[in-house]
């Protein structure tokens, strides 16, 4: 059960400073000033950049103004369906405290690289798929299938309107073990390798074979191979202590999609 409301609040309120600039090849006339914006770590770029789009539309050629919008960081196209905090933690150098510099594009959408999320319906559909998948891992899908459409809507609206209480009123049911179980069956987690967008999928139980609650130290052992040792985990911009319990992490440090998104640091042996 996600008891620690303080932690939930802190995670919810995490923000990133972004500095947006236009694509030089798309500008017509005067060059626009950059646009600065604080965005929630937990949301998705297409949901929080309406203002950015409106601001830059005036400066770009008419034929591009209805194009599918996308963003890049240092030439790397940003996955629109990854939470902003995940993108930031994977790409932005830790030591760098300046706003994250992104370029907005209105044309030449990289069709072979990025999943297109150019409508709220598509993002909502993706979000609901993530929730279903997470629930299948935690509860065999039993909790989410017992919810009504209005509960699903409340989660989505809570997320897009930044309403913590509205969101958690429903999400707490997804964060409880099912029935008389002590913990989740498996933990929904994306383990990112080597600071790129790819991740490992593995069934991770929160309980070890000996029946003990697993900690990150146990998870490190699980992920290590003779060639490569897992030495640390990071999420929401925080380095995690190896004694942190995996079940607790799933309940408190998951993104609204109900997944833990962990960057794993490896050391070659």
């Amino acid at each position, binding site marked *: 059960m996600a008891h620690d409301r303080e932690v939930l609040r802190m995670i919810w309120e995490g923000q990133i400073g972004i500095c947006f600039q236009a694509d030089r090849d798309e500008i017509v006339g005067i060059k626009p000033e950059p646009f600065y914006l604080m965005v929630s770590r937990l949301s998705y770029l297409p949901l929080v950049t309406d203002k950015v789009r409106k601001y830059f539309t005036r400066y770009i050629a008419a034929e591009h103004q209805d194009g599918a919008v996308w963003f890049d960081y240092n030439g790397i196209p940003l996955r629109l369906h990854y939470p902003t905090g995940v993108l930031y933690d994977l790409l932005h150098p830790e030591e760098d405290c300046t706003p994250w510099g992104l370029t907005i594009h209105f044309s030449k959408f990289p069709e*072979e690289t990025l999943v*297109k999320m150019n409508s709220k319906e598509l993002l909502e559909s993706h979000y609901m798929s993530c929730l279903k998948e997470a629930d299948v891992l935690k509860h065999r899908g039993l909790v989410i299938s017992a919810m009504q459409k209005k509960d699903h809507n409340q989660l989505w609206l809570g997320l897009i309107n930044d309403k913590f209480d509205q969101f958690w009123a429903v999400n707490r049911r997804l964060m409880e073990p099912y029935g008389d179980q002590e913990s989740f069956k498996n933990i929904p987690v994306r383990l990112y390798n080597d600071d790129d967008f790819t991740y*490992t*999928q*593995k069934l991770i139980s929160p309980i070890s074979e000996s029946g003990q609650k697993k900690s990150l130290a146990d998870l490190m052992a699980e992920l290590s191979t003779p060639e490569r040792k897992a030495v640390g985990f990071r999420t929401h911009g925080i380095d995690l202590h190896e004694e942190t319990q995996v079940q607790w992490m799933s309940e408190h440090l998951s993104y609204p999609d109900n997944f833990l998104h962990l960057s794993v640091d490896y050391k070659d042996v």
Partner: protein
Amino acid sequence: MSEMTWKDFLSQAQEFLKISEQLGDGWVLHEKDANEPNTFLKYSHKIKCQESKDSDFTLINVEYHIVYSVSYQVPMLFFQAHRSDGSLLDLEATWRVFMPDTASKDLYQMLTQTEHPVLFRPFMALHPCRTAEVLDQFGQPSANRVLTFISLYGPHVKLQLANAYGLSK
């Protein structure tokens, strides 16, 4: 019963491939590396289609992947369609070509673009939420459930298996 382990998927995919090789119909097994779920079945063919009621018939190339879902523990069907000029069919174009009679509000729950879990590129995917149920209903316990899966889901996206796969109709 409805859960398929990675080992099950791999052995059934290899069994399926043996039949395919005898038939010479072109399925291959693609292995990215030895980790779960990085080996999947692949098949391509060209189909004639009309992207909208007023347009000409054109040939598009469709590539299908049968990939194991670690979370759902069932196979999943992914595909990509390209025009002869190399351009990728986006979501709306794919819906028009492959599922012209389904309402878009339903399509959001059935067929959407997602990231391929092995290749990390955009692919169209049939949603897996009901696959376990469906396979339970239609498959026999001893049958090759990868084969059953392809025969049940493939036709919805213009992928038909030859009768010679031994499926009773």
